[in-house]
């Protein structure tokens, strides 16, 4: 488990990333799309954050906004401080010095995210050349080491192969190798396992976790699958309709989830202990309109536990009684009397099927 390069980040400990009231809006013909509408969180060096939500929740836009990889039609607001430096207003030219070096990204589908006509080795060596000015021999050595780090069999052979000659899992490892090449302090993993077999998924997540520990690297793991973040993150942020609706250290979230949306997400995961033919709970309805967001809670129209207040007033993000680190936005969270009341009604209607956990 070599750690060939590690940047001496300006921050070796403590807060690496501070996101304050981040807003990303897109100007389109239909109007202003509020993809990300006021998200605040911070991330320490070496820690991992899972960002969970459905498609359209803004989670991918969030990660791309922080990276700075958005089209110029995006309207940005708020603040993103990376290693103490404000990056939100930076031009692509300036950001380029960070990309691949201090922060990098692993994309969802490695088949389309790797250049199909370029040898794997060359793609790994590219950032080494750009940022570290390595000559070819050194770069090749480093690329080999990286491939070993990500546990690809026969790394010498792989360097001269093309992406289509590798399996899905191997390609994703290559992507990780590329992302790690210059020793970044922040790694974004955008649905890194969605396009892979289940067996390979776990390996990839393990790999990311391992590299994180070895390199003291922060990781932001974006996914729609709560199961993915369950064992591999320190903290989880749940997004809905462009906003944070719940955020907590992972264990606390699973032990004590407050927002009914989070609960629905939990219940949509099939579990191995469930009896066979347990009906999977799906969340009915569609994500909210991001051009004209509702004035109340975004999830209310689809929430089985919603009441009038939910539709009229937006609940603020508040900490739980038990812990300051756990915040949520809900008027009638899990465990509250109103919630219990409704829950009983529902259970009596639906029966026990699907109400697992």
């Amino acid at each position: 488990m070599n750690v060939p390069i590690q940047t001496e980040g300006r921050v070796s400990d403590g807060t690496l990333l501070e996101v304050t009231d981040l807003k990303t809006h897109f100007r389109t013909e239909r109007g202003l799309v509020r993809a990300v509408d006021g998200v605040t969180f911070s991330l320490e060096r070496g820690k991992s954050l899972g960002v969970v939500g459905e498609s359209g929740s803004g989670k991918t836009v969030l990660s791309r906004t922080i990276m700075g990889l958005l089209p110029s039609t995006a309207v940005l607001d708020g603040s993103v401080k990376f290693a103490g430096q404000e990056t939100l207003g930076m031009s692509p030219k300036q950001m380029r010095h960070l990309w691949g070096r201090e922060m990098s990204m692993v994309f969802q589908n490695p088949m389309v995210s790797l250049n199909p006509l370029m040898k794997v080795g060359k793609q790994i060596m590219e950032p080494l050349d750009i940022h570290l000015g390595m000559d070819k021999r050194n770069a090749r050595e480093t690329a080999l080491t990286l491939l070993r780090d990500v546990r690809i069999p026969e790394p010498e052979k792989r360097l001269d192969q093309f992406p289509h000659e590798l399996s899905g899992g191997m390609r994703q490892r290559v992507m990780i190798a590329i992302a790690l090449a210059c020793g970044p302090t922040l790694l974004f993993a955008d649905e890194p396992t969605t396009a892979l077999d289940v067996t390979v998924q776990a390996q990839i997540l393990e790999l990311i976790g391992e590299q994180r520990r070895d390199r003291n690297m922060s990781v932001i793991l974006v996914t729609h699958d709560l199961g993915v973040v369950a064992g591999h993150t320190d903290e989880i942020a749940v997004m809905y309709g462009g906003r944070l609706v719940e955020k907590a250290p992972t264990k606390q979230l699973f032990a004590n989830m407050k927002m009914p949306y989070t609960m629905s997400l939990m219940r949509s995961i099939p579990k191995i202990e469930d009896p066979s033919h347990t009906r999977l709970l799906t969340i009915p309805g569609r994500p909210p309109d991001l051009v004209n967001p509702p004035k109340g809670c975004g999830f209310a129209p689809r929430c089985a536990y919603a009441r009038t207040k939910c539709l009229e007033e937006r609940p603020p993000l508040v900490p739980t009684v038990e812990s300051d680190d756990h915040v949520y936005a809900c008027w009638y969270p899990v465990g509250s009397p109103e919630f219990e009341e409704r829950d009983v009604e529902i259970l009596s209607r639906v029966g026990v099927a699907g109400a697992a956990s």
Partner: protein
Amino acid sequence: MNYWLQRLVIAVLLLLAVSMVTFGAMNVLGDPLFNILGPRVGDTSPEGLELIDDAKAEYNLDKPLPVRYALWAGDFVRGDFGVQFSNDGQPPVSNLIKERLPRSAVLLVMAQLFATAIAIPWSLWSASKANSGVDKVSTFSTFLIIALPNFALAVVLKYLFAIKFGIFPLTYTADDPALSRLFQLVLPALTIALPAAAVYQRLLRTDLITTLQEDFILMARSKGVSRRNVLFKHALRPSLFSFVTVFGINTGALIGGALIVETIFRVPGLGSTIVEAVLREDFPVVLAIVMIITAAFVAVNIVVDILYSLIDPRVRR
């Protein structure tokens, strides 16, 4: 291997078919005797008739059409292209070919080179500025260039650059040194190249814009690759496929266009030769050049296939 063999067979069949059509057309619709003997065909005196008989025997004109074809084909395949009907002394056709083919080849190569050299930077530029004001102007101008017929373009270019601004010479002189001959070919080559460049540019631009939407481009950017290198090193190569195909197919089309351009700029190449030969009904010349052009066309298609497999490693066998 089976695939390449098939292609070869089809190519040969094609050449056969083309030669038959041409041979048939010339002999059925035209009058070979007239071309050999000129007005003497009408000579009904005993000497005249003897002359006609001799001519018939010498050129096998007394035999039926299929036989004549077979004879010609046999000779042709052995490299004997026959003699020129209409030139004094009737020199062998192959002399003519040897003299003129290189010129046409050079012209075509220059044209395609110019076209590519113009199209690639242009398309890269307009892809990076897609849908902006200047890009729209550029797209419109490609439209204008393509719409203008090549003979009209030739006249316009000749007027502007040879006459008004006097940059290029007006004629082609076969005895001039090689370099100045190349220079003399620039204007004709440009005439052929400009519309081709416009077509290539449109294609490349579209493909580049599509490629630039791909995820691996974003990935490259996220590695810190500069905009310029993203274009050249990552976006260009995957966008070349349609271009290569059209490039190949276009070579055939350009051969046709070269005929007119050679005639206008009075370049003594294969194109202007065949035009003359057709007008003078000089069959062997026509047949020889038609076969050469068709063979070239077929060969180009095969080369395109090979190029394809080189660009895209996924296609390699």
